[in-house]
C-alpha cells in the first residue's frame, strides 16, 4: 500500500495523500491547528449542554431570572446528589436501562435473520417485504400512538415494560434491517461457500462467519436502537402511567410542570441520563470504524 512518491514522503493514509501537495509549513502547523479546530467544534456541540450544566448548579428561580447571568448567582452543588438519591429518579433510570437494553436485544434477534435472508435469497414476497420495511420507517409513533394505546389496552399490557419494549423494537426494526441487509449483501458469496465446504451449516455460517464480518453493521444497529429507545417519549408518555415505572424522558419532565419548577433538578437529571449513552458509544466506537472485511478474500 505504501508508495514512495516523487515528492518524497511515504503515503500511509488517505488524509496524508490529499495533504501531500500542501506546502511544508502547513504540515507543521496542522499539529497545532487541527486540535484547535477540534476544540472549537467540540465546544460548539457541547455549549448548550454547558448551559445545561450551569443551570443545574443554579437555584431553580435563578434559571428564569432577568437579566440572565453567565454564572450562577449562588452555586448550588448539591443538585446532582439530590437527584441521584431521589428514589423516583432511580426507578426511572432502571426503567430506561431495561427498556433500552431489551428493545435493542429484540431488534438484533429479529432483524439479523430477516436481513440475512433477504440479502441472500430470492423468494416470493421479497420485494413486498422490503417495501413494508421502508414504509414502517415512515410512520411516526406520534401518529400511531392512539391505535397503539388501544391495542395494548385490549391486551392488558398498559403500564408494562413489555408494551414499551415491543413498540421501541418495532419502530427501530426498519433501520436495523436496512443497514444489516446492506452489510450482508456486501459480503462475497465465496466466503460463505468456503464455510459450507468446511462443513458449516446455514446457521453455523451465519453465527461464525457472517456475524463477525458484519460487526460494524451490528454495532451501528445497536447504537442507533439504544439511543432511540433511550430517548423515546411519546409512546412511553401514553403507555406508562405508573410513576415508578416511567422511563427517564417521561419521568424527569415532572420536575418542571405548571405546579412546580425544579429546572435545576430537570437539567441535572438530563445530564446524568446522557452518561450511559456516551459510555456505550465510547466502548463500541472502535468497532464502528474497524476494517473487518478488508483482506478476507484475496
Amino acid at each position, binding site marked *: 500500500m505504501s508508495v514512495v512518491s516523487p515528492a518524497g514522503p511515504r*503515503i500511509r*493514509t*488517505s488524509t496524508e495523500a*490529499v495533504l501531500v*501537495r*500542501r506546502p511544508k509549513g502547513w504540515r507543521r502547523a*496542522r*499539529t497545532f491547528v*487541527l486540535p484547535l479546530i477540534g*476544540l472549537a*467544534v*467540540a465546544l460548539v456541540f457541547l455549549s*448548550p449542554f454547558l*448551559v445545561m450544566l450551569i*443551570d443545574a448548579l443554579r437555584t431553580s428561580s435563578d434559571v*428564569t431570572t432577568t*437579566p*440572565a447571568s453567565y454564572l450562577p448567582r449562588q452555586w448550588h452543588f448539591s443538585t446532582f446528589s439530590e437527584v441521584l438519591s431521589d428514589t423516583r429518579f432511580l426507578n426511572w433510570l432502571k426503567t430506561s436501562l431495561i427498556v433500552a437494553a431489551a428493545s435493542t436485544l429484540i431488534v438484533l434477534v*429479529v432483524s439479523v*435473520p430477516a436481513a440475512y*435472508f433477504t440479502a441472500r*435469497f430470492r*423468494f*416470493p414476497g421479497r*420485494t413486498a*417485504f422490503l*417495501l413494508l420495511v*421502508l414504509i*414502517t420507517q*415512515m410512520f*411516526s409513533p*406520534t*401518529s400511531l400512538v*392512539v391505535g397503539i394505546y388501544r391495542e395494548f389496552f385490549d391486551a392488558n399490557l398498559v403500564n408494562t415494560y413489555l408494551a414499551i419494549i*415491543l*413498540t421501541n*423494537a*418495532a*419502530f427501530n426494526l426498519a433501520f436495523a434491517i*436496512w*443497514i444489516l441487509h*446492506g452489510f450482508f*449483501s456486501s459480503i*462475497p458469496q465465496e466466503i460463505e461457500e468456503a464455510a459450507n465446504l468446511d462443513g458449516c451449516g446455514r446457521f453455523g455460517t451465519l453465527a461464525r462467519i457472517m456475524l463477525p464480518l458484519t460487526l*460494524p453493521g451490528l454495532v*451501528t*444497529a445497536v447504537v442507533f436502537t439504544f*439511543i432511540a429507545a*433511550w430517548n423515546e417519549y*411519546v409512546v412511553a408518555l401514553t403507555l406508562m402511567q405508573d410513576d415508578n415505572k416511567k422511563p427517564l*424522558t417521561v419521568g424527569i419532565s415532572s420536575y418542571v410542570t405548571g405546579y412546580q419548577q425544579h429546572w435545576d433538578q*430537570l*437539567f441535572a437529571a438530563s445530564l446524568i*441520563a*446522557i452518561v450511559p449513552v456516551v459510555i456505550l*458509544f*465510547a466502548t463500541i*466506537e472502535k468497532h464502528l470504524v474497524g*476494517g*473487518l472485511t478488508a483482506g478476507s478474500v484475496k
Partner: protein
Amino acid sequence: MADQIADSVAASGSPDAASGSGPGSTSGPALPGGPAAGVRAVGRRRNRGRERGRAPWWVALLWLGPALLLIAGVVIYPAIELVRASVSHYSITGLRLGSAGGRNYSKVLEHPALNTVLKNTAVWVVAVVALTILISLALAQFLSKDFFGRKVVRWAIIVPWAASLVITARLFTLIYDYNYGILNHLLLSLHLISKPVDFLGDDRWTMISMVAVGVFVSIPFTAYVFLAGLNAIPTDVYEAARIDGARPWQVYWQVTLPLLRPAMLVASVLNIIYVFNSFPIVYTLNDRNPGYTHDTSITFMYKLAFKSADKDVGMSAAAGIFNVALILVVVLVYLRLVKWQESENR
C-alpha cells in the same frame, strides 16, 4: 409501483450501500467490484441477483416471521386503526359517533391553515436536511483526519444525539428566551444586537430558531454515517488520483463525493423521514404561538386532535395519513432524482 419502490430502496437506497452504508461499513474495499462498487451499485445488484439462491415462501416465513409479527402488531395494526379513525366521525371528547366517509379528508384539505402548514413543512424539511448534510460532510471530513484529541471531539459530537430531544428542546426555549435567555445576553454583551431578539415570538425568527436546533440535533448521526462512508474509501483511489495530478479540491469533488454516494443516500433518506416526523422541537419551541403560524404537518396533526378548537380525532387521523403519503412521495421523488443522476453520470 411496489416493485419500483422496493427496487429503489434495494438498489440505491441503502442496503446495497455496499461500500459504506452505515457508520463503519468498511466492507467496500473487500468487494470484488472494487472501489467504485458503490457507484455501480445498480449494475452490481443485477449480477448478484443471479448468484442469489431461491427459497420457497414458507422457508422465508421462518426467517422473516419474527420481524413480520412485530411490524404487524405494533405498526400495521395501529396504522389500520388510523385509517379507520380517518373515516370516522368523532365528538369533541373523542367518542366515535359513526362513519364520516371522506369528510375528514376534505376538512383537512379545506383547512384555512393548510397552506401555511405545508409551506412551513417544506421550509423546515429542506432547510434542516440540506444544512445538516452540508455541515456533516465538512465535519466528517475533518474528523477523518488524524489529530491530537480526535477521540474526545468524536465523543463530544455524540452528546446532542444522546440527549433527550424533549429536554434539549426545553433547554433551547430557555436559551432563546427574550427576557432571561443566555443567547440574547451573549449577543447584547458582544454588541452584535442593540436590543433583545424575540427568537421564539417574532415571526421572522421563529422558523430560523427552530431550524438551528433541528440541524444541531441531526448532525451527529449524519456526520457518523459520512465518517463511516469516508472510512470505506480505499486509500489507493486517492493515490491514483494524486498520481494523475489532481488538486486536493478536484480529488474531493471527483473522487470522494462520488464514492460517498451510498452514505449520502442513507443519510438523506433517513434525515428526510426523521425531520418530517420530528415532533418535540417544533412543538416545544413553538408552544407560545397561537394558531398554526409555525406548525409543520406533524404538529398540525397533533394539534388538530388535542390542542386546537377543532379537537377532532378523525380529522387528525386524516392529516396523519396525508403526512405518511407526503413522506412516501418525497422519498420516492428523491430516490428517482438520485437514480436519474446516477445514470447521467455513467
